[in-house]
């Protein structure tokens, strides 16, 4: 965090600058200190009350990679896979309804929209336990497919909302022009709709991925401990088992989404620049 010095010689604005520095200091305490503490905790061999810094350091958290690396990697891969499939499924079920909800006004539109967005508001546990019971019956419990289904049910509204907003920003004439020029539906979807929807897909997809990747309870319930997950792997450590390892694993939750979002952002920017599409949205 670089903080430029306030311009000297401007008395009122330098007093104001101090106020902003105070605000940033508060932010540092609130949002930077937890990461620092997690980082220290991850390399602390002993850190007990009332010491303000660890008493001894160790790389025990790293040894976990050697000792249990296979299980850790499996849980990470599994979480990434079911979260990615959840994004794809959420997109698949939301894209056509979003186009309708964005373009047409009809009686009951608000009711349909409220119903379809309701999984964001109705706590997942209310339908999760009943759904789990039925999944046992049809053999979906303890499978990755079951986990994807329940995660999609809980998170698709973010995709739907984002795509609806995206469709609303596309001028209907774009589609008509392309159709007049003889483009088939297939071609229009690929060359007109999807590129214009890009940002909305990325926004919705990022939220869905994050929700799926971070979820503990639903995966624990439907996956039944058989489907490996990063949150499930982490849980015993943070709930009292071993704070050093818990803190180390937790840092993964800060790094993975950051890397992912920066990568997506860069790729998209590159893609749009190549196609000369900057400035349309």
């Amino acid at each position, binding site marked *: *965090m*670089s903080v*430029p010095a306030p311009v000297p010689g401007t008395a009122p604005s330098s007093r104001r600058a101090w106020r*902003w520095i105070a*605000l*940033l200091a508060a*932010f*540092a305490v*609130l*949002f930077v200190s*937890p990461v620092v503490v*997690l980082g220290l905790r991850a390399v602390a061999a002993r850190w007990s*009350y*009332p010491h*303000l810094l660890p008493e001894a350091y160790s790389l025990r958290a790293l040894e976990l990679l050697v000792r249990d690396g296979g299980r850790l990697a499996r849980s990470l891969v599994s979480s990434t896979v079911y979260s990615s499939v959840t994004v794809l499924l959420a997109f698949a*079920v*939301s894209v*056509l*309804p979003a186009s*309708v909800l964005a*373009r*047409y006004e009809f009686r009951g539109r*608000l*009711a349909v929209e*409220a*119903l*379809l967005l*309701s*999984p*964001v508001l*109705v*706590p997942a*546990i*209310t*339908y999760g*336990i*009943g*759904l789990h*019971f*039925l999944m046992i019956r049809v053999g979906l419990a303890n499978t990755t497919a079951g986990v994807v289904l329940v995660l*999609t*049910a809980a998170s*698709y509204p973010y995709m*739907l909302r984002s795509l609806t907003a995206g469709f*609303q*920003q*596309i*001028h*209907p004439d774009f589609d008509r022009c392309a159709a007049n020029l003889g483009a088939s539906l297939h071609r229009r979807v690929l060359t007109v709709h999807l590129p214009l929807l890009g940002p909305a897909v990325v926004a919705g997809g990022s939220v869905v991925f994050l929700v799926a*990747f*971070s979820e*503990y*309870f639903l995966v624990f319930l439907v996956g039944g401990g058989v489907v490996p997950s990063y*949150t499930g792997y982490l849980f015993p450590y*943070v*709930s009292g088992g071993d*704070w050093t390892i818990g*803190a180390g694993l*937790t840092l993964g939750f800060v790094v993975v989404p*950051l890397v992912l979002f920066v990568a997506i952002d860069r790729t998209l920017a590159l893609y749009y620049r190549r196609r000369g599409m900057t400035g349309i949205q």
Partner: protein
Amino acid sequence: MSYPRRPLPTAFADRRRVAFRLAPLLVFFAMTVGVGLVHAVLQSLALAGPPALDPARETMSRWYAYHELLTRPDLLRSLGHTVYVAAVSAVGCVALGSVGAYLLWRAPDWVRRAGAVYRLPIILPHIVVAFITVLFWSETGLVASLLRAAGVVRGTAAVPRVLFAGHGVGPILAYVYKGFPFVMLMSLGVLDRVPERLVTTATMLGAGPVRVFGAVVLPLLAPLLNQLFIILFLYALGGFDIPWILGASRPQMIPMTVYALYFQGSLADRSIAMAALVLLAATAGLFVVVYARIARRLSARERPV
């Protein structure tokens, strides 16, 4: 900008096509959320689920589960405690989040850029936020160490117990920390479209920063804050991950109670667990309906900024 919706096409074939586009998601919704809820309702009335092995259950009333839920003191206390934790958390998120957004919105660019770290808790999973809360606020946590180093308290006995004391401070701290940056993010999205001249005018008319917040910013944010309050309130009402780590055992948060009754209790307890879930879903449904009403009224007289 967004383009206005047009009326449905009148030709029957076109209308059918529109219906076909909505159908897959409606079916998906019904097959997941729908059947899950219906099963909860049926099992709460002992109409589905495993047959009760307890013969006494056969002679009980259909409404046994609801009756227990609303008359047993420990369950009632759980319900009340959960509503209290959820309400305080949601109010805290909205209050801190809107003020935080206002401060960042008024801040110069360099503050805004450095201040972007506020987004951290948004990407953290709930169980991680709960873990951070434990690291800082437990009796032997970092805050206690800091207080002792500053000479405010001496010895462990003097440190006030913050977590697991039964007054819900642990879950509230975690929910507020996780939620208020989200409110900031959404509020900044609205505020960034508000023209500077509104604030300039108010300032020229003599309004200070506090007055500008109350008279200009809050009314503009109100519809969004109402929405966010409902989302955060309902999440905290039914969230499992945070109470699983931070919840006291007495009084218990409802999701914990449900879990214990369903997976560790007797078969008759299962119907009580389901009744609690039905009540939770009904509360949420009521909020959705009330909210849809409010949203329609608001969008009818949406004011241009």
